[in-house]
């Protein structure tokens, strides 16, 4: 049963990821990425990371991808300006290189053969995550707030019309 769900979610995730890079129009790619995120959340639930699964949908699909879709619609893109690519050979070099990298990674981790332990207690509960975040990882948490502040100011400065 669990295996069936795993195959279902991974098939959805792989199909959506391929669709992201195959689509001609970026908007469809972004919408397909949301499908990928939902499949990811399913996999997180299978791994007993419940809180992360919820956060993945709410924050990633609900905020970040809305930002993407918002910008794509704001820009009113010209449809698929593929035109003359000066780097077309990248396709013929990049795909074999990528497949070679895939082969290397799968050859490395493919026979790891370790079992995922079935967590007797749910380790990804909101309480456990909050406790760890505000005790062991307090300093990275605070630094993260600084990063968000800088990104906020940077976004405003970059997107501003120059006088």
């Amino acid at each position, binding site marked *: 049963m669990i295996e069936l769900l795993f195959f279902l979610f991974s098939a959805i995730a792989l199909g959506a990821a391929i669709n992201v890079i195959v689509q001609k129009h*970026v908007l469809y790619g972004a919408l397909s990425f949301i499908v990928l995120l939902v499949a990811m959340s399913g996999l997180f639930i299978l791994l007993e990371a419940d809180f992360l699964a919820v956060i993945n949908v709410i924050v990633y699909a609900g905020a970040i991808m809305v930002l993407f879709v918002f910008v794509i619609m704001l*820009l009113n893109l010209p449809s698929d300006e593929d035109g003359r690519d000066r780097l077309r050979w990248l396709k013929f070099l*990049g795909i074999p290189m990528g497949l070679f990298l895939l082969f290397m990674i799968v050859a490395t*981790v493919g026979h790891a053969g370790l079992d995922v332990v079935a967590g007797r207690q749910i380790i990804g509960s909101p309480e456990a995550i909050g406790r760890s975040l505000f005790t062991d990882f307090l300093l*990275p948490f605070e630094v993260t707030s600084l990063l968000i502040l800088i990104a906020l100011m940077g976004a405003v400065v970059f997107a501003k019309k120059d006088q």
Partner: protein
Amino acid sequence: MIPLNWYLILSAFLFIIGVLGFFVKRNIIALLLSVEVMLNAVNLTFVAFSSKNGQISGQIFVFFVLVVAAAEAAVGLALVIAMFRNRETLNVDRSNLLKW
């Protein structure tokens, strides 16, 4: 019960799909989306190892990856807007002033 390496292989496939998208696509928003696909693959690896070891650190790390992805999307999309305003295009081959 699902072995750990199934998750690792799935994550490798997702990562390579992101890498291929980064190589092949020329639209800058598509490049940003490819980076997000790669980040998701890494997140899956983190959560798989976290669940396998029974430790929560991996899931905390996914939080930080999420934050960095949000910051990257905000700044990157602001740059996309600025680029579109100046160049009227999103093709990365057309904005090559810094290339040589």
